[in-house]
């Protein structure tokens, strides 16, 4: 039944085409979140249907079977319109789930948003490790001769020549029978990166704002994961104080209270100094906030930390300002004026879900 595999492959190709065409739509929904496995994402797509002339559901009626007086509700779901075996192949709207490799999704994202590949910093991008003797080839030194392969070949040849005698099993290897172990080189890319997702969880960040952050974080992770072999993600939340949390609480936490952004930047700095040293890691801090900081003094302090400590150490610092009903949005302006000309700083404001795609492009469009 290998034939069906070809049809299935063709179908999947079509689905990918759909997905690619609708990627913008997926970029702004939270549908994909929580569907990510280790290597794949399960993407729900509406079943591809060929249209036909067929009956509509005309207010859901038909013939059923069972107890119940006139006027009693019918249990079960007659929505498939299978009145009496009539509808058959025109089953209702099914949703099809398709597994797509994260790598592939990242590629689509890259194409859609025209993202450049990230150039690794420094010159230690590739280090060749020793490799292993896992290959076989037909020349080599005698010391590496693969006895079993060689003997098998010799035996095969002897039998084929018809001179093999089971009573006197004599097998003499000829030079062309010989096989040798061979070292396969496996250059191991040394590319490790860490993403810091920092989110303001003060009272003014509502559900919608968090959703925007979530979706953005999902796509950023997906992209960077395709660019680095080894990716770690650190989640930090802050209101007046900052702390490291796990992924789930990052997305569900709702603190309230004041906002002191410098607390987060200080924590970030501490992590970069102690654990994720820039010599070993590519660093990507992303900060999301509604732009309402506690005081101008604190904002000054943030600018100072960024300028003197963080920016020299990271690949890129991204600040995404999510519009909310309460936030003043002042912080982005302060950053833009205070740090004018800093190449590694990217600030964007996102008004709603539709702005996510552009924000991602601004964040990742520089290829750092």
């Amino acid at each position, binding site marked *: 039944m290998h034939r069906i595999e070809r049809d299935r492959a063709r179908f999947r190709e079509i689905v990918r085409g759909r997905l690619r065409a609708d990627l913008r739509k997926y970029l702004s929904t939270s549908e994909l979140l929580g569907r990510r496995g280790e290597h794949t994402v399960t993407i729900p797509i509406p079943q591809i249907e060929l249209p036909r*002339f067929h009956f509509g559901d005309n*207010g859901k009626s038909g013939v059923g079977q069972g107890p119940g007086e006139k006027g009693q509700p019918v249990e079960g779901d007659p929505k498939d319109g299978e009145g009496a075996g009539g509808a058959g192949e025109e089953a209702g709207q099914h949703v099809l789930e398709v597994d797509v490799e994260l790598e592939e999704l990242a590629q689509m994202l890259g194409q859609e948003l025209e993202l450049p590949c990230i150039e690794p910093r420094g010159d230690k991008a590739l280090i060749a490790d020793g490799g292993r003797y896992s290959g076989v080839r037909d020349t080599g030194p005698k010391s590496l001769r693969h006895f079993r392969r060689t003997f098998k070949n010799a035996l095969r040849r002897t039998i084929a020549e018809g001179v093999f005698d089971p009573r006197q099993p004599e097998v003499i290897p000829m030079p062309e029978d010989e096989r040798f172990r061979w070292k396969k080189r496996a250059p191991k890319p040394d590319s490790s990166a860490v993403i810091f997702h920092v989110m303001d969880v003060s009272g003014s960040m509502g559900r919608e704002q968090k959703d925007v952050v979530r979706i953005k974080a999902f796509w950023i992770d997906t992209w960077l994961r395709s660019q680095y072999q080894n990716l770690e993600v650190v989640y930090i939340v802050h209101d007046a104080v900052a702390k490291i949390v796990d992924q789930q609480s990052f997305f569900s936490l709702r603190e309230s209270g004041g906002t002191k952004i410098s607390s987060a930047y200080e924590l970030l700095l501490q992590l970069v100094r102690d654990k994720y040293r820039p010599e070993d890691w590519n660093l990507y801090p992303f900060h999301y906030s509604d732009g309402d900081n506690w005081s101008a003094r604190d904002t000054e302090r943030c600018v100072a930390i960024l300028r003197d400590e963080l920016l020299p150490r990271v690949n890129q610092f991204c600040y995404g300002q999510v519009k909310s009903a309460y936030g003043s949005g002042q912080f982005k302006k302060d950053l833009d004026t205070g740090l004018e000309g800093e190449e590694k700083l990217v600030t964007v404001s996102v008004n709603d879900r539709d702005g996510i795609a552009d924000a991602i492009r601004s964040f990742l469009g520089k290829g750092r």
Partner: protein
Amino acid sequence: MTTRAQLSPMLRHEATRIERIARAAGLDPGDVAFEMVDARDVNALAAYGGFPVRYPSWRFGMDFERLDKGRQYGLSRIYELVINTDPAYAWLVRTNSDMEQKLVMAHVLGHADFFRHNVWFQPTDKRMLDRMADHGTRIRRAIDLHGQDAVEAFLDQVLVLDNLLDPFLPLREHMKVRAETAREVATASGASFESVRERALTSTSGRPPTFDVLGFLAERAPLVEWQRELLRIVRAEAYYFLPQRMTKIMNEGWASFWHSRILTGGVLDASEVVEFADCHSGATATSPGQLNPYKLGIEMFRTAERRGLDLFRLRRVHNDASFVDEMVDDDFVARNALFLFGQNGRTGRTEVTDRETKAVKDRLLQDLSWGGLPQIELVDDDREGRGELVLRHHHDGRDLQLSHAAETLKSLARLWGSSVHIETREETNVRWISSDGSEVRTGEHPYERAG
């Protein structure tokens, strides 16, 4: 004689026994070739409509994907698959228990007998396996010559029209051919049945009014040769599968009636009775909002038996609609607790609206007649001298799904190369949908092209 080389000795023994019992009871299943397949492969077969040699298409891949997901998640399971050919190929799934294998073998013999004797299957080609393979070769060749994208796009365009058929055409032609052959044989002109039949099936009237829109298009649409060939292939396969739509309830009912009769007639081991009951009642389970064709079918045959009717004659002459017409009466409706349901306009709830025999039966007949398809007739092929097609939907109270109808019409217009129209109704209001292949207009009157 059944072929069962692949079966285990135990199953081979059971197959022989079951077949002997079935034949003694009066079934005549002809040759049945049993083969064993894996659970995954049976899904592939099902996706191909039972024919492992079908032409390549993404739609089969999609169906397979859905079936196989269902299997992996444990939501659905196929026990067997049998196709209407001679010999009838029956695939048994390796993962079935011994009891289930016996059950499905008996079930399969019921289907095979039905295929062989029901009148609606008489016009179908019993060598369809070869024909499907031939279709596959032709379409693959077209792909090689004209490219996957072109062939695929054209196939998709044609497949949306594959239910524009005349369900009664094959049998009508078949009868005519039989009469003609008889006459020609009588006049000793030497024409064989086959040659007359071939002539009848390839010659369509090519003139409206006709329900055989596909046949009309195959003859008259402005197509290049490979496209015409594909259209003929799609039409031939659609007509081949049509009787299965028209007799689903009877066919499943007949097979279930006989598997139940045969297995409880001594084939079951005492230790298997509970498992059998579980399996059989699962297949014939009812749920309020949906009719189970297995259940409805088996009950009709049981009722017929109670009434002392000739079951073998019934299975020969009826389709689902006419069988329901004959069997369903007050007693049947009451015994099977059939009801009509509908949506309560005030509450939006789906509820029982009627238990009167007439209402239930009318609705059943409506759902089952014309193969369950909307009745759509080509009434004009040269509207106002401009070569535009006009279709008429014979509205019986059930509306078309209008957005799909519009898309379908667009596809038809592209195929025809000129504007096409369909006249239908939305409840009581007349609707004209027109398309020139790129856009669609809906109104109460046919859309006139400007200029």
